[in-house]
Structures are given as structure tokens and as C-alpha cells.
């Protein structure tokens, strides 16, 4: 019968798919767990590195890491579809209210620190700006690079999408200068690109561009065109780095968070405790973020 080889082939394929990865031990006395981790695109590379290291050390735990933005992660925590939400901004009062309404109690852990680097094209002569100047550029008050001492070129502003914690943090700390009553918004012609890679790509090849992103996402060829930021015109212009974030001299730095539903227990608690350990914090430094002291 012609069907027999086909049936044999299909059953062989199914059996090989059930085989599992080599080196996996049968879960006997150890408890195996599956942790779902979702949220900030700033944190995603770090979370992936952590998950990979943790899974090699603890083969019975599986961790899945996805991005989507801080807003996405927190929304998933509120909807109960994720164990740990990564966020590069603090949860808002509105979101806490929605969480409580859904029976979710968000608990925050600081897992790392990060600097937001403002970067321009290497051809751009501008290398230092005050917070006020960056705010005016992004809110649309300054539209040409001559307004901050550069060439006669139009300014093309690049930003992350509104679901990004980095975007919200930048809005609050830089555009609004940390003032909660300020209601300045991004200029309407700010390009909202869906990924950090899109921003870096455009900054790299467009001499008119200015963009911002986490320090860990600035590639080596753009490290020389990172802007030194001063709090005001009389102050010192500071380049972002691990040292300047830890001694609080760089004004645009922030904590990175993980949120869980209630105090973490079991496998999630072990994982988060491991994240706060020196071994995991070394991975933080390797990736360009700032380890918590």
C-alpha cells in the first residue's frame, strides 16, 4: 500500500519532535517551572542574556522573554498573562488602579540602572547640549541646527513609539524637565520608529537626525557622537557612562524595573534573587547598562 511509507515518515517526524533537547534530564525530584517575562524593549536584550545564563545553570526552569515595550508588559501583567513584566519606567497611578480592579497587585523590583544617551550623526559638529535645548529641539521650538550652534540643516527628531517606557521617561525627564505640571508634548513631526534599530540606522545615515536611546543600544561607531548633557547652561557637560550614572552626575539616567503580581514566590523569587546577585549584575555591565550597587 502506498500509504504505509507516508504513515511511517509522519510518525518518525512526530517521534523526533517529542525527543526534546539533548542533555535534558527527566524531571524527577526537582520542580520544573516556566516563567514568562515580557515588556520593555530596552530591557529585552538584558533579560534574554539573563534567561540564557539562568537556564544553563538551572535546566529545569524555562524562561520565555518577549519585548513589545514597557506599556505592553505592564498591560500583560494587568491582564494576568505574564509572570514578570519588564518596564523601563515606573508604573503609573492609572495602571495601578486598573491592576487593582483586575485583582492584580504589582510589586516593583529595581534590577539595573540605565542612561539615556542622546546621539547625533557623526558629521554633526554639535556635541554638547543643555536639557533645555534638548527639550526645545524635541518640542518643536528649535527647527534648525543653527539654533544650537550647528550647520544650516533642518532637525529631524527621532523617538521610540508611545508604548515604550523610554519614550515616556524622555517625555517626563527631558521634554518636561521633570516638572509634573508641564504639559509640553513631542513635536507632531517627531518620527516614532518601532525599534531602537530603526533609530540607530537613521541617525547613522542622516546628517540631520537626532535620536535618543538606552546607552546599551548605542553601537561603537556612534559612541563618539553621543551628546554631553548639562542640567543648565552654567553647569558641566557630562557624557553618559557607568561612572557618571552611579555618581548621579549624568542627569538623564533611570532605574529599570521588574514587576510581579504580589511578592514573588517559588521559582520566580529564586530567579529575581539571582538577578540581583553579582554574577547577574556582571552581565548588566557587559551589555552597557549600569549595575545596581
Amino acid at each position, binding site marked *: 500500500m502506498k500509504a504505509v511509507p507516508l504513515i511511517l515518515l509522519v510518525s518518525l517526524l512526530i517521534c523526533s519532535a517529542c525527543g526534546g533537547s539533548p542533555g535534558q534530564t527527566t524531571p524527577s525530584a526537582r520542580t520544573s517551572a516556566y516563567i514568562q517575562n515580557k515588556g520593555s524593549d530596552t530591557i529585552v536584550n538584558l533579560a534574554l542574556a539573563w534567561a540564557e545564563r539562568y537556564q544553563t545553570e538551572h535546566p529545569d526552569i524555562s524562561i520565555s522573554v518577549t519585548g513589545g*515595550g514597557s*506599556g*505592553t508588559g505592564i498591560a500583560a501583567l494587568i491582564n494576568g498573562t505574564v509572570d514578570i513584566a519588564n518596564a523601563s519606567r515606573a508604573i503609573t497611578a492609572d495602571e495601578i488602579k486598573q491592576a487593582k480592579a483586575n485583582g492584580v497587585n504589582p510589586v516593583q523590583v529595581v534590577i539595573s540602572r540605565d542612561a539615556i544617551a542622546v546621539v547625533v550623526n557623526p558629521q554633526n559638529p554639535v556635541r554638547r547640549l543643555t536639557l533645555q535645548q534638548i527639550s526645545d529641539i524635541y518640542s518643536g521650538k528649535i527647527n534648525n541646527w543653527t539654533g544650537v550652534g550647528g550647520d544650516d540643516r533642518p532637525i529631524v527628531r527621532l523617538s521610540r*513609539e*508611545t508604548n515604550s517606557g523610554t519614550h515616556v521617561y524622555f517625555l517626563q525627564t527631558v521634554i518636561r524637565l521633570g516638572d509634573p505640571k508641564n*504639559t509640553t508634548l513631542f513635536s507632531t*513631526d517627531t518620527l*516614532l520608529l*518601532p525599534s531602537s534599530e530603526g533609530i540607530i540606522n537613521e541617525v547613522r545615515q542622516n546628517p*540631520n537626525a537626532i535620536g535618543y536611546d538606552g546607552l546599551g543600544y548605542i553601537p561603537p561607531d556612534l559612541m563618539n557622537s553621543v551628546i554631553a548633557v548639562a542640567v543648565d547652561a552654567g553647569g558641566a557637560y557630562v557624557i553618559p557612562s557607568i561612572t557618571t550614572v552611579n555618581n548621579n552626575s549624568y542627569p538623564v539616567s533611570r532605574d529599570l524595573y521588574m514587576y510581579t503580581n504580589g511578592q514573588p514566590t517559588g521559582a520566580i523569587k529564586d530567579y529575581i534573587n539571582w538577578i540581583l546577585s553579582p554574577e547577574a549584575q556582571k552581565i548588566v555591565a557587559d551589555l552597557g547598562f549600569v549595575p545596581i550597587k
Partner: protein
Amino acid sequence: MDKSPNWRETFVTAIVKTCGYSAVVFVILIFFFLLRQGLPALLEVKLGDLFTTRWYPIENHFGILPLLTGSLVVTVGAMLIAIPFGIGTAVFLAEIAPRWMREILKPLVELLGGIPSVVLGFLGILLLSPFLRVFLNLPTGLTALAGALLLGAIAIPTTVSIAEDALDSVPQGYREGALALGATKWQTIWRVTLPAARSGVLTALMLGVGRTIGETMAVMMVTGNAPVMAIKLTSILSPVRTMTATIAAEMGEVANGSSHYHVLFLIGLILFLISLAVNITASSVIFKSRKRAERVLS
């Protein structure tokens, strides 16, 4: 006639009828789902606020006008590119190219239609937008024009396929009659064949428009997603934000049941209604009963 074929007849007819009706039922169910999730937006957000010019949903600015104009500019631009190239290619394939060339070119055109739109978007970011920035001396190449070019490329295979089939189905008698009356080849094509295939060609264009309005990935990557009001003539050279890119970028982050969630569904409803209108226009053209003169001649 014995009973057995009748039983089989009813059975098969029932299955085919179910399939046919289920297609309509699914569309109606989708429509009602969109209505249910989208209409609360009209209650939660004042109508006046919905039609303002600032879209910044995380601070409750829900003005959808920039998104409507963005989609419109990109679609109109794409059709301005797809119509001449699409119809031109279809005419070339159907009327002018020798048979062997047609056998090669038609599959190639359909291959262009098979390229995933995200791949085209990727090419757009890396190649098209730097080129546009340098060539047209723009502040940035991530503009509605880049989006329109990519969407034109995506809409052309659909348009060419259907228009070419429509031109092919014009009876040979029309062309022979025109040539016998002394018309040149071009006069035959332009004044006899194309008008005769009018309904098929219009359908092809409508389907191209439908495809363009709903395209998400390619526009999200190359139009810059800046919610500006694209109403000036030069707006084609500025970044825009389409409705589809807005839904794709923001749907992941909304909490179920919030105003933002409902407004996004309202935008989806608007897209659905636009596609519906385009398709109804297209089908009213195809199913129009033929004029008496056309019936007599063929």
C-alpha cells in the same frame, strides 16, 4: 430517477451552501465585534475630541484626523503609481508582447506580488529612504513618498493580474473590427479594447486600492509614523502616520477596555468600512448588466 442521487445532491448542496453562507456570516460577525468594541469610543471620547489634529493617546489626545489624512496621502500616492504602471503592464502583456514573452513576464509579475511586505519594508529603510533623502534633498527619507512607492509596488501585481485577464477576455472580434475599419494598433487598444474591458480594469484598480489601504508592515517601517496633518501638496514629502501602523504599533500596549483600546477599534472599524465601500463599488461595477450594444456585438 432513483432515490440515491437525490440524497447525494441534497447533501452536497447543503455543504456548499453552508460554506457560502459562512463566509458572509464571518464577515458580519467581524463587523459586529468591531462595532461592539469600537462604538464605546464614541461615548467615552467626545466627538469633537475625536476630530482634532493631535494624536497622542497616552495623554488622552485622541484626534484621528492626522491618521485619516496619513492613510489617504499614502493610498492616493500609491494609486498614482500603480494605475499607470499597472494598466500599462497589463496592456503590454495582453496586447503587445509576443506570446513567449508573456509566458515569462506574467509569472515574474506575480512573483513580485509574493514578496512579503515586511521584506519590502526592510529594503525601504535600508535603500529607498536614504536614496530619497539625497535625491530630493529632503530632511529625511522616511516619508509618505517612500510608503507610496512601496505600496505601489505591492499593488501592481494584483492590478496587473486582474486587468490583464480582463483585457484578454475582450472578444477578438472587437479588435478585428477596429483594424478592419483602419484603426492603428494603439487606437484599437486605447479606444476599443480598454473601454470594452472597462469593468474588469476598474475592478483591478479597486482591489489595488483595497490592498493599499490595508497594508501595515511596509508603511510602519518607512513612513516615519509621525502624526502630522497631511493636507498640503508637499505633505507627500513629509513623514505621516497611517491608521494601520497606529493599530499595529499600539494595540499591544493597551489595557483591555480602556478608552485607548476602544478608539483603536474605532479606527479598525473605519478601515473596515472603507474597505467595504471600495469592494461594494468594485462589485457594483462587475455585476452591472451589460449594455444592449455589448450583448449584440459579442
